[in-house]
């Protein structure tokens, strides 16, 4: 008898335990993680500011963070993940769950637009006068890249200068008695010689000419015809055009197809992932590539290259002249290197907001900018008159993460990589196809990933001869109809035209 009642009691207890979770939420509604209330503060406690971004390799202790904390009486907390995918997954969950960081890396216009239109981001228009030093530093032209729908949702970071150019193995050219190629035909000849005439003179046919990370290897070929990479928008004859619809694209594809069937290209080209193509370059089996100088001219890269073959000598060459002129790859003129946004919840935290603006201004003004570019004066660098000379680069390699608004590229590159000044300047000076893709926000109803995948697959089929090039127009038609590319084309053209008019 007693056991029966005991059993019933236990069941009741278990069921009530399960329903405990259904109590109405009486906990605080403010999503802020910090345990401080807004309003009057003890002015001497450092304000905690959380920055969420992509990245890794922050040392512990962090001398640059400590210096900034001291200068502004704040306590920066960096939450960084190296992989952009991981970072944005985490960010999406956090924003949906109401757990906002104080400074968010939104990185590109599309994401900034998405979050902004959902009301998650703070419109900075009323605070523009508090950000004047930062705005002056990045320049009005760049600052307007953070403006969408008339609202300033982002603070941009100064864009990087171009790094990519054509590179060729000078020692191979010398071994074969060849001149530096200056036209597309000469490129083909040199490529064939590198593949079939044993340029490294080791008696084995183990060399090719061209490699890269997939279709990107042919960036220099596309630009020789005056087109950007597949899917990019640029201005031709005064009109905004997408490279896929440029009549010269077919010619460029035919040329690439020719190179591949000549056998001068890395057979594993499309399968190259991550840094495999760079490893292959160091191994010394390729001689004619389109790469950034950072992978070839930097001290560390040269070390790797010379370790395998002390005679290896890479030189930059101007873009070959093709039917489209001699444009050297492409450069996105609407891009920024990073885009920062602030969450809307900061509206109610004016003290913290003020400190955040101070942070952005501090790293934009000369003193703070020097800190985040080079480290601590006296320890990492010293001033010789007006010029900065680096004395100890160790311990501050991560400084670029703190360059929230960027850095003056010319000075920075000259100071840090002065030994490669020639290569740096060469890359900056080359004429390129000017594209606008960073500007575009996707129209509703358009799924970019499907269309991009289709474009990628079909282009690969065309250049490998799996689909005849005279089906190119059919490909475009499928793209525009089945994959809704037309909507994207129209929307993008409109956005770019508006941007150019400004």
């Amino acid at each position: 008898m007693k056991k029966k009642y005991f059993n019933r009691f236990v069941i009741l207890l278990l069921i009530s335990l399960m329903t405990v979770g259904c109590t109405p939420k009486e906990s605080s509604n403010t999503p802020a993680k910090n345990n401080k209330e807004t309003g009057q503060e003890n002015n001497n406690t450092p304000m905690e500011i959380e920055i969420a971004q992509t990245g890794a390799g922050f040392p512990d202790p962090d001398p640059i963070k400590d210096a900034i904390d001291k200068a502004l009486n704040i306590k920066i907390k960096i939450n960084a993940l190296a992989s952009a995918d991981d970072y944005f997954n985490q960010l999406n969950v956090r924003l949906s769950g109401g757990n906002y960081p104080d400074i968010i890396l939104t990185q590109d216009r599309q994401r900034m637009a998405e979050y902004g239109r959902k009301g998650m981001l703070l419109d900075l228009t009323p605070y523009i006068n508090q950000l004047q030093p930062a705005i002056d530093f990045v320049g009005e032209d760049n600052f307007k890249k953070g403006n969408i729908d008339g609202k300033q949702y982002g603070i941009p970071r100064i864009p990087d200068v171009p790094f990519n150019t054509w590179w060729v193995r000078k020692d191979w050219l010398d071994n074969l008695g060849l001149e530096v190629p200056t036209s597309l035909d000469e490129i083909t000849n040199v490529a064939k010689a590198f593949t079939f005439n044993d340029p490294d003179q080791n008696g084995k046919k183990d060399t090719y000419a061209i490699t890269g990370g997939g279709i990107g290897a042919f960036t220099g070929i596309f630009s020789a015809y005056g087109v950007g990479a597949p899917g990019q928008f640029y201005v031709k004859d005064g009109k905004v055009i997408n490279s896929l619809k440029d009549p010269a694209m077919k010619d460029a594809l035919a040329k690439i197809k020719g190179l591949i069937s000549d056998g001068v290209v890395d057979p594993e080209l499309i399968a190259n992932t991550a840094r495999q193509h760079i490893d292959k370059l160091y191994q010394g089996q390729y001689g004619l590539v389109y790469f950034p100088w950072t992978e070839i001219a930097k001290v560390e890269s040269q070390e790797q290259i010379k370790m395998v073959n002390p005679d290896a000598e890479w030189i930059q060459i101007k873009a070959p002249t093709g039917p489209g002129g001699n444009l050297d790859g492409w450069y996105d003129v609407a891009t920024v290197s990073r885009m920062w946004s602030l969450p809307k919840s900061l509206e109610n935290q004016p003290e913290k907001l003020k400190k955040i603006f101070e942070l952005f201004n501090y790293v934009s003004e000369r003193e703070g900018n020097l800190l985040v570019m080079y480290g601590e004066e006296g320890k990492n660098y010293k001033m010789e008159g007006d010029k900065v000379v680096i004395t100890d680069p160790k311990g501050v390699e991560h400084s670029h993460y703190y360059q929230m608004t960027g850095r003056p590229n010319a000075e920075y590159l000259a100071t840090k990589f002065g030994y490669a000044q020639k290569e740096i300047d060469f890359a900056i000076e080359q004429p390129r196809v000017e594209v606008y893709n960073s500007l575009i926000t996707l129209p509703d109803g358009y799924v970019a990933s499907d269309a991009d995948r289709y474009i990628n697959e079909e282009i690969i089929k065309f250049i490998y001869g799996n689909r005849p090039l005279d089906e190119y127009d059919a490909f475009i038609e499928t793209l525009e109809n089945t994959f809704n590319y037309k909507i994207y084309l129209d929307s993008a053209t409109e956005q770019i035209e508006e941007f150019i008019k400004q």
Partner: protein
Amino acid sequence: MVRGLEDRLFNTIIYIILGLVGIVCAFPLLYVLSVSVTPYGEVLKHGGYIVIPRSISFEAYKKLFAGNDMVQTFGVTIFITVVGTFVNMVLTTLMAYPLSRKNLPGRSFFLMLIVFTILFSGGIIPTYLVVRNTGLIDTVWAMIIPNAIGAFNLLIMKSFFENLPSELFDSARIDGAKELRILWQIVIPLSMPVLLTVGLFYTVGHWNEFFQAIMYVTNTDLHPMQVVIRNILMQSQNPELMLDEFVPTTTLQMAAVIVASVPVIVIYPFIQKHFTKGVTLGAIKG
């Protein structure tokens, strides 16, 4: 027993096949191990194919453990694994035992609830909100408590307990033992195979903890090892870093993989003998 030619032929073929399969399984591991101790330049010189390392250097390992964060993250991972598995086992056992007793009131109701969670889950955002409102966000416990009882493991344990002969329990009860005592002194000693199996599932799960950490823990000090290693490996994908930072070489990446997987590989053989015992235990009724 006369071993005829057929038998010997058969055995030889089996050994050859098993040998090949063994080599195919072991080769990738050997490759990773070899590349991780070979200097990067050597790796490049031989086109990336090193099976037997020609020159050994532990440079990559030294670099990996140079920063404080590797030691810290190792500690976090050990903590989650040890404490987490302990919490897992206690809770799972305490839940599996009552559910295995057929005379538990409401048994089928609770079993149905559990199976329900295997089929349907709340989704990422609602789960995140629950974890957040219980205050677990950004603590080490976010990687232990939300997944404290794995429904599948629970069912495995429950069915094992069900197969224990009920005469044991009856005789224990006659002698005056209460339920907890039966659990502790009779059921657990008899259940070593399943406890070790389920324990190993949980341990490996905790060791590989990644998704939970990314979702719930933003404090980089509390990231477990897999997240840190992924950061190291993914650094090479970040275009900004092309300019400023040291980019991890193949050697370093392989060393990171070894550090992440070796501890589990080392523990496996010790527990393996209990698996084989567990597989056959239910088969023969003695």
